């Protein structure tokens, strides 16, 4: 019975190919848009998640300079307000797992005639632990390198590729940073993009003391641009933030009521906000795309209404030979359902293809998940049933005599 009906639905669709196709087209576009938009949203969310996990967990960043100036300031001659002793003091606080003072700047790097401008970070070995950053090849410089300010360097993947190409192993090679020779002792494991879109692998890490003395000598001895602080746990973060603030205000002799000369930022909170924003954007994309699905559904309803009117006589004949109301209902419902499901399947293919195009040509990450496909399928099926129901019921409620008399 059911298969017979399915066959009939198929038959009826074939009788009016152009119309069926146009109706399906609405569905295809709707489903395609939903799948594609969800793929773009999911891609954005996943790349954000990757950036967040590459950042390290439970992080604060303490920046030199008053809170109202955003980010690390370029070397405008301003004295940096933080120093290594501040970092040591923060490390003594309760709930703090690790601390790494950081100074940084951009520098020209040369190897065998290859020139590359990159971000040079001067820091302590603890930086690597805080950021959960490992070495692919070689070793991390030690605290004794800090004490003696040796000229050793860790090199990021992007920088290494640009200076050495694919064939040469950078470890053991000597590069020149701002004319000073440095020996590369390790190659950093790639981390990809940071939350603000920078390539984290385009970098060189050197001992803090070496950076201060040999590279960024115009800065006051011992000062740093920022201090990276890792709390012991998520729960310890609010208290730690307060403690860092009061500790530094006290150390910097800042009177009650006046502005700090530093700022503490909860990186984890910032990351969560970014993730939340992306999620909202993904939802919004999906919601907008769903509207086209709705329009597709209305198209189905429209065509089914026309179909019921056109086939009134047929409905009368079927009733006269024993079709029950629900047989007629099922027949038209099934037809709407088949149109929407076939449209949906093609729409999914279009959506997946579109997502691939976006990935290749726009360079945005897109991820088609099975959930998005299942969702598109479920929605399309419900749309078919929902918008098919009214016309189908109209057909089933027809009076057999009037239907038979209909010309």
């Amino acid at each position, binding site marked *: 019975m059911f298969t017979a009906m399915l066959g009939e639905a198929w038959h009826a669709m074939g009788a009016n190919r152009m119309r069926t196709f146009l109706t399906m087209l609405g569905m295809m576009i709707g489903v395609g848009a939903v799948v594609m938009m969800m793929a773009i949203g999911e891609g954005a969310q996943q790349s954000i998640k990757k950036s967040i996990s590459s950042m390290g967990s439970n992080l604060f960043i303490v920046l030199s300079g008053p809170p109202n100036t955003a980010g690390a300031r370029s070397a405008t001659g301003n004295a940096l307000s933080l120093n290594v002793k501040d970092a040591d003091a923060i490390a003594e606080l309760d709930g703090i797992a690790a601390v790494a003072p950081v100074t940084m700047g951009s520098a020209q790097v040369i190897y065998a005639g290859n020139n590359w401008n990159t971000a040079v970070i001067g820091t302590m070995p603890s930086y690597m632990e805080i950021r959960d950053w490992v070495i692919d090849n070689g070793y991390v410089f030690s605290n004794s390198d800090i004490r003696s300010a040796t000229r050793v360097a860790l090199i990021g993947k992007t920088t290494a590729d640009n200076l050495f190409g694919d064939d040469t192993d950078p470890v053991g090679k000597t590069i020149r940073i701002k004319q000073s020779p440095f020996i590369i002792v390790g190659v950093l494991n790639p981390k990809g993009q940071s939350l603000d879109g920078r390539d984290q692998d385009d970098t060189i890490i050197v001992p803090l003391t070496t950076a201060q003395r040999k590279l960024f000598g115009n800065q006051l001895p011992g000062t740093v641009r920022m201090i990276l602080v890792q709390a012991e746990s998520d729960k310890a973060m609010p208290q730690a933030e307060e403690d860092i603030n009061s500790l530094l205000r006290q150390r910097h002799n800042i009177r009650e009521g006046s502005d700090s000369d530093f700022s503490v930022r909860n990186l984890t909170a910032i990351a969560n906000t970014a993730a939340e924003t992306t999620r909202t954007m993904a939802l919004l994309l999906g919601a907008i795309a769903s509207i086209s699905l709705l329009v597709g559904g209305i198209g189905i309803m429209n065509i089914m209404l026309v179909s019921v009117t056109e086939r009134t006589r047929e409905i009368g004949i079927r009733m006269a030979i*024993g079709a029950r109301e629900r047989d007629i209902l099922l027949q038209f419902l099934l037809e709407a359902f088949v149109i929407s499901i076939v449209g949906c399947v093609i729409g999914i293919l279009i959506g997946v293809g579109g997502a691939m195009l976006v990935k290749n040509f726009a360079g945005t990450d897109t991820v088609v998940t099975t959930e998005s496909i299942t969702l598109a399928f479920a929605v399309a099926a419900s749309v078919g049933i929902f918008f098919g129901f009214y016309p189908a019921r109209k057909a089933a409620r027809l009076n057999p005599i009037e239907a*038979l008399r209909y010309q």
Partner: protein
Amino acid sequence: MSNVIEVRHLYKNYQTAAGAFPVLKDVNLIVERGDYVAIMGPSGSGKSTFMNILGCLDRPTAGEYLLDGHQVSLLGGNALAQLRNKTIGFVFQGFNLLARSTLLDNVALPLVYSGVDKRTRHEKAEQVLTKVGLGGYLNSRPNQISGGQQQRVAIARALINDPRLILADEPTGNLDSKTSEEIMQLFDGLNSEGISIVLVTHEHDIAEHAKRQVRFLDGKIVHDSYAQPAVMEVN
């Protein structure tokens, strides 16, 4: 219970803008199993209205109708559909075949609604099509055959569920006299197999095929006999 149809004090009004319009006024008719009834009467006398009620396609305004022992007025939509499907075979003046389907599918359609599987459906449809002389046209479509052949297909469709009763409203109305004669011979054969037949016609020589003649006038039965005086009357 040997009566296929028992109709008592049947009334049917149509609601029009001018108020209730009576079409059937106190119709009484009993058709025994195996009977063969021809209904005649002038246009507008209510014959089709009566047939539609007999066929469970329409409900009377008042009165009692027993079909094969079932009190029709007590039945719901699904039960009526089942009666139309199994107990009654309907043959229309305009054939009423599905243009898009093959003859085989057309004839098998009632079986779809009785939940018969596809193979049995097709076997049975082929059988009845052969019986009405169209065994060679199983996969043709209605527009590829003549009117007489189309009416045979409609009769085959009416027969497929082995009905007790065949109702035919002017089955030869669209056919020439030679083809009409062939169709009537088909009905005669079915009646001799024991199927009760009630048909409406305007033609005396068609009515002569039946055992019993009933005459409608202005919504009432004015003549009912097994002899054939009705034919002799001026129409």
